[in-house]
């Protein structure tokens, strides 16, 4: 497979997903973990979902609070992302934010 050119921002997001492939993640949580603004994060998430690499669902966390949109890699997404050569080494170069939030 040809090595794709992945932006450092996309790598940050993938890194979060690869660490816990089965966990559902919130948008704001990913934003804080990766240090990405919503304008950068959501296009990446939308692209991954467009190609069925990411699944989404609405979850209700507590009464009176609107449901939240959550994201998780699909099995196909996990397989494909893991197959990207150099992803781990490239991800290692990405600055890790100090904050690491909880998981849904």
């Amino acid at each position, binding site marked *: 497979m040809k090595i*794709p050119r992945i932006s450092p921002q996309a790598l940050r997001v993938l890194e979060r997903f690869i660490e816990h492939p089965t966990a559902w993640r*919130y948008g704001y949580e990913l934003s804080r973990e990766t240090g990405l603004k*919503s304008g950068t994060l*959501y296009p990446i*998430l*939308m692209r991954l979902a467009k*190609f069925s690499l990411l699944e*989404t669902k609405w979850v209700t966390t507590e009464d009176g609070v609107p449901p939240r949109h959550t994201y998780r890699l699909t099995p196909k997404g996990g397989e*494909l992302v893991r197959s990207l050569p150099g992803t781990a080494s490239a991800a290692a170069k990405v600055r890790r934010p100090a904050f690491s939030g909880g998981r849904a």
Partner: protein
Amino acid sequence: MPIAYPRRIAAVLLRFAIWIAPHDAHDWGRGMLSELNHVQGNWAALIWAVGGAGVLAKHALLSVILPGSRRRTLSSATEVFSQEGPMRKATLAAIGACIAASLFFFLVPIFRQAFHVSLAQWHNVIHVKSVFDMQGPDPDPELETLARKAEKNHDAEGLAFVAARTTNQSESARFAEEAVHLDAKLTWIYAVVAVRYPSLPEIDQWVPILQQSDPQNALPNFIVAQKIDIEEIDRNQNAGHVEEKTAIWQNVMAEAFQSPKLDDYLARLTELDRRVLLRYQVDDPFQTFRDERWNNRPSYAAQDSSFYANSLLESGRTLRARGDRKGAFEKYLTVARFGQMLSPADWDFFLRGELQAAYKRLGAIYEGEGNKVEAAFYTSLANQTDRAQHEKLISLRNRVRGSGVSRWNSFLVKASGLVILFSGGLLLTCGLAIMVRGKSFRLSALRPSRLTLAFGFFGGIGALLSSAVLYVSYRPYAEILQRFMRNGDETNLAELYSFLDTTQLPLGAQGFLDVWQFVLYFWFGVVLLCIFALLVAVLRRLQFNARANAAT
């Protein structure tokens, strides 16, 4: 606790963005909106909303530009990370359409001709030797092919055509003799070749033939006079008076001044050109082009005429002083008649002073005799000389410089030709860059960067626009050429010659005298750029080595 205004504004902004966003982005918008409740800080919430709204607005815009984009299956991991997919495709499609449209122009024969004309400016820049070598321009391969065909077919007119154009003197003489040998009616081609190459030894044999075939024409006399002038210059003999000239020179000039006509054979040559170009299906406009600015006249004719006319005026003055009014009248009248004979071909341009003097003196003689009518006639002719001279000067200047319209069209043709070349180079470079970057020749593997796309887009647009400008600017001249070739219609042919004449000058060169300077500066610039590029490459290499050393 009341919700702070920034958070309120953020919510309104995101709701509006969701409203304008396409249907498939609504979930994402609502997701951003729900996250807004968890963003810590009011201003952070606003920033979150601005970013999210931007994403949704972008999707809304894309759905307007490219409606109907659907979910598709994934073919490779590379596709996931391709940025701005739809926009990239649209740009690529636009570039492809521009290139296809530009190439479509090349299917039109007039456009191919126009492109060929636009490249003429580069001839002197590339063939540097022809600019600095006084021996003349390089051989013309197309003319050589035509010469071979004409020889093979024993085509007298074809050979005469080549004789009038080839830059090789001895070949020109040989072709002329072959042409006359095949068709005796073409003896006039000797005069054309003799005017072009005045030192040819064959001229001595040609002149009697010319005088026999066209006894009333003054042109052979001028040819002989010019040959004598050149031989005198070669021997460093510079005659100050007519009496110091050889008897042959004096005789031929006396005959020239008595000749009833002067035919430079340009009309016959133009008609011959047309027939030959049609016969050999030559569509190169430069083959129809001849430098008509100075007509087909010997270079020394003006000087010789002036020299001889002054001697006639001087001897007329002497005769008048001796009281020989009739003798003086004859001398002045010879000059005046000669001037009238030259007038149709504009040869009298260089004899303004002599003609004016002859008219004035003729008027004075009639005045002395009391013949007021004749005196007034010659005085009026003398007075008209200056105005006629001024008009001919304007006409000559227009012929030399070309009209404003032809100069402007020539500029457009040269500039658009240059842009086509530049755009072609840019597109080629972009194509190579994409292939090098993709490390593959497969179309599916080629992924251009935004910068490459931008350059490609400008290259495509440049190629298309300049092709259109080139076609529109050249078309009128193609029509003039076609009318001439098909019907012999010479209307605006001078305009075509003027246009072609200016088109041969490199863009930026003001005149033929500047060409060598332009060529010099051009190549100097190219060398400087190469040196600069080399220096940059060396510096980068040194910088790279220094970094590598520092890392180790």
